[in-house]
């Protein structure tokens, strides 16, 4: 029996998901039983969905033997359980950001999803947020989605989020089951970086694995924004863990490996910084 207990946005919680994956990844045509107890952060549905999809691709059946009723209601509202044969529930509080499974070429669907879930769907919940901050959040989410599209070589991209109106927070997670930072970078440069080194390299400005095209700004700009917004960003790629928040950077290694990459973002919605200040850039002096 697999148990997920108190899954939050922490290193330990990601470790629990990695254990779940490692313990069942060899299973083929099997029955995989799962219990979810105490707490489950809704945005982590994206990571759990990616892991369960790996099991389903080995033709295993997934059984949710027990889900704490409160958790179950959230996972019904955010559509996660509808991917596993349950009837969805209406979200009257309008605080969920739906679980979504997309192909990398589904950019247009992602756009509609972002508009519905983050822009139009929550106009009334985010009164205190400046227009500039909201735009920056959406831009950041896009940069990460596009990164997964371009770099990960994944079959699917999984996203999910959650609003916390009382805590003035939004959490958003983008997951792929592609090759991960380590293999991508080592393939490109013939290096032998560990996952943690690979992530550390990639979050710095101007670091790119694209050949013949400059880049490497998306993660760096995200990191700067997270700093100003007082939010948090976490990257899990294979056995590497990276976190950046007000306390700085922290890097750790997991036992076992996640089969791809998780980017977990937390933004403050009470951010009143004016991001749309007039820049001092002269339009005739860009090139």
């Amino acid at each position, binding site marked *: 029996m697999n148990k997920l207990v108190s899954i939050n946005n922490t290193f330990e919680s990601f470790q629990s998901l990695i254990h779940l994956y490692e313990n069942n990844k060899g299973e083929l045509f099997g029955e995989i039983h799962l219990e979810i107890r105490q707490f489950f952060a809704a945005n982590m549905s994206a990571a759990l969905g990616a892991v369960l999809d790996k099991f389903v691709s080995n033709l295993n059946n997934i059984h949710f033997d027990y889900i704490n009723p409160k958790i179950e209601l959230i996972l019904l509202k955010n559509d996660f359980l509808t991917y596993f044969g349950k009837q969805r529930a209406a979200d009257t509080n309008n605080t969920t950001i739906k679980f979504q499974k997309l192909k990398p070429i589904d950019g247009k669907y992602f*756009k509609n999803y972002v508009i519905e879930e983050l822009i139009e769907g929550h106009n009334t919940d985010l009164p205190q947020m400046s227009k*500039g901050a909201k735009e920056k959040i959406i831009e950041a989410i896009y940069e990460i989605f596009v990164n997964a599209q371009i770099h990960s070589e994944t079959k699917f991209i999984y996203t999910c989020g959650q609003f916390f109106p009382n805590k003035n927070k939004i959490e958003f997670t983008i997951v792929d089951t592609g090759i991960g930072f380590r293999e991508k970078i080592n393939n490109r*440069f013939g*290096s032998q970086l560990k996952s943690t*080194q690979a992530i550390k390299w990639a979050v710095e400005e101007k670091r790119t694995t694209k050949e013949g095209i*400059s880049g490497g700004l998306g993660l760096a700009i995200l990191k700067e924004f997270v700093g100003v917004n007082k939010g948090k960003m976490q990257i899990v790629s294979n056995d590497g863990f990276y976190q950046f928040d007000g306390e700085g950077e922290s890097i750790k290694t997991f036992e076992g490996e996640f089969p791809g990459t998780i980017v977990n973002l937390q933004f403050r919605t009470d951010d009143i910084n004016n991001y749309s200040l007039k820049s001092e850039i002269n339009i005739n002096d*860009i090139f």
Partner: protein
Amino acid sequence: MENTTINIVNTIGDVYGVEAEDGQKVFELIIKAFTDKKKVILSFQNIEMLTTAFLNTAIGQLYKDYQEEYIKVNLKVSDVSESGKVALKRVVDTAKLYYKDPEALKRSIDEISED
């Protein structure tokens, strides 16, 4: 030299300039115009969202085949939002450095390997 205007929204069929693939469409049109010795005005009119991934492919990679001076003279942008200007400036500065010093990336890998 004649001017030609490239409208991004029309080129990509979207007000979101976010995907690298869409940036490529804009890039190819600019190259077409440059090859035909035309000056380009790139219009960002009605663009609502930009990513650096889009701008890298649309504009950044011009620095691979064209000198900075040539681009300065032959490419102008119009109707760019304030945040768009900031992103574009960063993309352009990054591209210039990248093509000037292609070994810089490899060196940064070596540095982190020694950590």
